[in-house]
């Protein structure tokens, strides 16, 4: 490699050598991007991660097994138990169809690969493609070929993107980010060339993106904003008209092909900016057409006045239509983008998802490291050379910075533009300082030795090109050259180190399988989830209904293959609130709810023994809040806090808390593990009451090895017609002492 580049630096190489080098570098980057994401497979095994991927996996299996058309019409009666879910019409099918197609192509090539492995490895494979798309996009922005290569390398290893695309993270984002970047590339291409072809291609990929991820709305709004800004800057041209109208006309139709999206593009306010800009572009184009035929300044101003007036009228009409309800109002998630408190007040179900929380400042540095401070420099560079495509970068940068600050999960849309901008900045530095104007081969060699990865190679590629172009300007002292280059290289090396560290430590845990370190340093695998789900699969009837909090719905459906009441789809808030109410009420209140929903087993996650903090007691407050949203009279958040406003589980916990079903299920029999009075909850680090809770309507069915998952069976009605509390009391030998109290449950018998 070194020999090649030396030869190449002397300027003897032809264009083809440079092209070959570039291809090799790109392939290396793609390979690095793929392999950086395989930590999870190496550490654990080829397993689907987290929650949503389990549903996608299940849907993909259904697609592969039953074919496309029955997948399209799939009505799933094994989720949302009494209701069912029209799954085929309420999902983004892009991901499943993609892996289904890959599966069939591989079989056609007589390479029968298990569908699970395809699903696990889909995200890394597509991240390799994302790196390539990134190269194309950035190459459009800058004349220097190093910028594209740098951007591709950054995109390949930036933790902000890796967080959603490690092997096994089989989620919509896995392919959506590639589609996002590629659609933007095609859009830039279209607006540069003003050709219908590129616009139509952009529309096609936009359609693919729509079928893959709800985040397509970002594109839907960003491109019109770009066009609108260009028009306001007086940069209207036929290129703009051709590319935008083609994209919009075809893209809107394409997006309406997805059943889940349906008529949204013409109904919901999220899409109205695109429509408005479309109208505006038509008007401006017509005005331009007239202007070209009419001399006279007055007329022009008149015309533009008319255009402006029309625009205002259109805006007013839009507002009117929104108010009268013809156009659907903005969806809740989008309100929460502008008013971060909105979700907390109005839609607890959205606020309860951790990835919808506002981003903490350190997260930016954690996810982007060195890129985040190169980012503003890159945006500034765009201002220096403000062509149409640079305007796009600036707009994208501003919008996505804001959104990333509002919602953790939108860090994902910020990452591409950060990579573009910082690659622009860095390539400019390297262009300036590594230019071989004078025959200073020594400094070149020195820098070439130190640098690693794609950066050095790309830098050297660029250096020679630059030198040929403008041989006059440049830094001539080899000292300053080598110092700056060495520093930059060191930073890049640090960045690589950071990325690897973050990936291996923070983002490669499947969260289905946990691991921890024993005191002696050896690895200890905690596999409670799969253990418990497998127990369910083996020991319960095929149609036993499992109630759990919605977080675990997809996993139960995917791993245990049992019907659930609620799952991560969260389409029916009331149903979730019902589960929340059952969890947060007294046993006597919960029992009718359980009976009415045919619940056979209740599953809770409890981390008190192990110190696993993502357990149900910590999520309990959200259950209470969501239930309170529907039944403000029966469930009150205040009752679960002590008088001093603390959320406690120990002796001082409120009565409501201690009588809630969730509390009882979590701590049932927990005392028996410890010497009397010593029971300790390691998550909340508090000592539990000496006497453990008593359960009468449920019986413990299964508790996993580390007590993370506890499954309870719902008791049938009592044979003799007693309520459960007195039946339990009777069996314990208390005779009929407590039956005299006669709390409500007799009402039950009426059903």
């Amino acid at each position, binding site marked *: 490699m070194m020999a090649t580049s030396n030869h190449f630096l002397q300027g003897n190489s032809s264009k083809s050598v440079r*092209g070959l080098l570039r291809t090799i570098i790109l392939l290396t980057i793609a390979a690095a991007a793929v392999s950086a994401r395989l930590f999870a497979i190496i550490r654990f095994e080829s397993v689907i991660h987290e929650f949503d991927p389990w549903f996608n996996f299940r849907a993909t299996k259904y697609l592969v097994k039953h074919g496309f058309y029955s997948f399209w019409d799939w009505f799933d009666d094994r989720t949302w138990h009494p209701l069912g879910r029209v799954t085929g019409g309420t999902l983004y099918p892009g991901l499943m169809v993609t892996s289904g197609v890959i599966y069939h192509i591989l079989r056609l090539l007589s390479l029968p690969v298990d569908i699970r492995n395809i699903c696990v490895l889909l995200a890394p494979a597509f991240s390799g493609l994302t790196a390539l798309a990134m190269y*194309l996009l950035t*190459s*459009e922005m800058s*004349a220097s070929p190093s910028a594209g290569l740098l951007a591709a390398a950054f995109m390949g290893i930036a933790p902000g993107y890796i967080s959603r695309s490690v092997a096994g993270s089989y989620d919509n984002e896995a392919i959506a980010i590639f589609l996002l970047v590629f659609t933007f590339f095609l859009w830039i*291409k279209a607006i*540069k*060339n*003003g*050709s*219908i*072809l590129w*616009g*139509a291609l952009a*529309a*096609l990929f936009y359609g693919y993106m729509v079928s893959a991820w709800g985040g397509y709305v970002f594109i839907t709004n960003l491109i019109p904003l770009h066009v609108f800004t260009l028009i306001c800057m007086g940069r209207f*041209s*036929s*290129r703009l*008209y*051709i590319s935008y*109208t*083609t994209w*919009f*006309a*075809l893209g*809107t*139709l*394409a997006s*309406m*092909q997805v059943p889940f999206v349906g*008529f949204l593009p*013409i109904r919901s306010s999220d899409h109205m900016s695109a429509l408005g800009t479309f109208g505006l572009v*038509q008007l401006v*184009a017509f005005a331009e057409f*007239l*202007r*070209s*035929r*009419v*001399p*006279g*300044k*007055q*007329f022009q101003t008149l015309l533009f006045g008319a255009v402006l007036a029309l625009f205002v009228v259109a805006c007013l009409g839009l507002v009117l239509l929104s108010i009268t309800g013809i156009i659907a109002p903005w969806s809740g998630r989008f309100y929460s983008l502008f008013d971060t408190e909105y979700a907390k007040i109005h839609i607890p179900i959205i606020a309860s998802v951790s990835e919808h929380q506002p981003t903490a400042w350190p997260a930016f540095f954690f996810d982007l490291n060195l890129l985040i401070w190169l980012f503003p420099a890159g945006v500034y560079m765009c201002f220096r050379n403000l*062509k149409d495509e640079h305007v796009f970068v600036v707009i994208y940068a501003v919008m996505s910075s804001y959104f990333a600050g509002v919602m953790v999960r939108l860090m994902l849309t910020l990452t591409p533009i950060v990579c573009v901008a910082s690659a622009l900045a860095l390539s400019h530095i390297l262009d300036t300082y590594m230019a071989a104007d004078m025959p200073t081969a020594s400094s070149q060699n020195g820098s070439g030795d130190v640098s690693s990865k794609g950066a050095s190679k790309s830098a050297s590629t660029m250096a020679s090109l630059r030198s040929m172009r403008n041989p006059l300007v440049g830094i001539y002292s080899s000292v300053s050259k080598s110092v700056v280059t060495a520093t930059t290289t060191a930073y890049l090396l640090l960045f690589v180190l950071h990325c690897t560290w973050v990936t291996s430590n923070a983002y490669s845990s499947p969260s289905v399988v946990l691991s921890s370190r024993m005191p002696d340093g050896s690895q200890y695998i905690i596999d409670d989830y799969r253990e418990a789900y497998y127990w369910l699969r083996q020991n319960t009837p095929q149609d036993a209904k499992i109630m759990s909090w919605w977080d675990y719905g997809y996993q139960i459906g995917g791993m245990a293959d049992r019907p659930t009441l609620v799952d991560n789809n969260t389409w029916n808030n009331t149903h979730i609130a019902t589960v929340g109410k059952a969890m947060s009420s007294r046993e006597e209140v919960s029992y009718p709810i359980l009976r009415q929903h045919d619940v056979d087993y209740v599953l809770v996650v409890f981390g008190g023994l192990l110190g696993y903090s993502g357990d149900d007691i910590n999520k309990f407050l959200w259950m209470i809040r969501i239930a309170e949203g529907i039944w403000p009279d029966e469930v009150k958040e205040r009752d679960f806090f002590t008088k001093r406003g603390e959320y406690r589980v120990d002796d001082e916990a409120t009565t409501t808390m201690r009588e809630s079903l969730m509390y009882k299920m979590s701590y049932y029999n927990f005392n028996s593990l410890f010497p009397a009075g010593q029971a300790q909850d390691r998550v909340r680090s508090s000592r539990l009451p000496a006497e453990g809770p008593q359960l009468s309507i449920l019986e413990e069915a299964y508790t996993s090895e580390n007590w993370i998952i506890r499954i309870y069976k719902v008791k049938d009605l009592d044979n003799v017609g007693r309520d459960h509390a007195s039946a339990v009391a009777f069996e314990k030998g208390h005779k009929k002492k407590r039956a005299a109290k006669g709390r409500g449950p007799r009402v039950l018998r009426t059903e």
Partner: protein
Amino acid sequence: MAKKPAASSASTSSRPSSKQPSSSTTTTNTSSAQSASKPNPASSSLSSSSSNSLSSKSGPQAIALHIWNDYVQNTPPRTFLLDAFMAFLVVIGGLQFLYAILFGNYPFNAFLSGFCAAVGQFVLTASLRMQTVEKLPKGASAEARKAASAAAAAAVKRNEGSGGEAGAEVDGGAPRVSSERAFADYVFGSLILHGFCVNFIN
């Protein structure tokens, strides 16, 4: 499917200035005023031979008349066909919309795809028109035109070659696209459009 005749005629004639719409003006006259986008005194005085000297104070009627005359005189027949097709699409779209308002939009899919097909075809045709008409630079002499077409060929070659660099842009306007290429693009876009419409119509 009414698009076929208009579109194919657009492709067959290669140079828009080769045929003259009206016999009154001379050839040099029209080619220079082909797309007089700037208030160039010489060209405007030449082109507006019928509705002479449009002053900035003339009323809207005079302006409209001037525009119409200018349009009728200086539009090559090929572009006329495109314009007629566009007008036809506007009428079709308008009729569908009117129907939806008057009689309800019950098969909403069908209405939507019909309407979208009209709108989409309209913008595609408008794009084609822009690409084919704007190829003549302002105040074009034969040499300038030749240079422009050479630049266009170079630009096209560059685009097809290596990812296309920023150079495709010539003097701020649209990059020169040959009319064959423009028409191929147009067919491609129309195919996709109608494919989606047929799929969507139920």
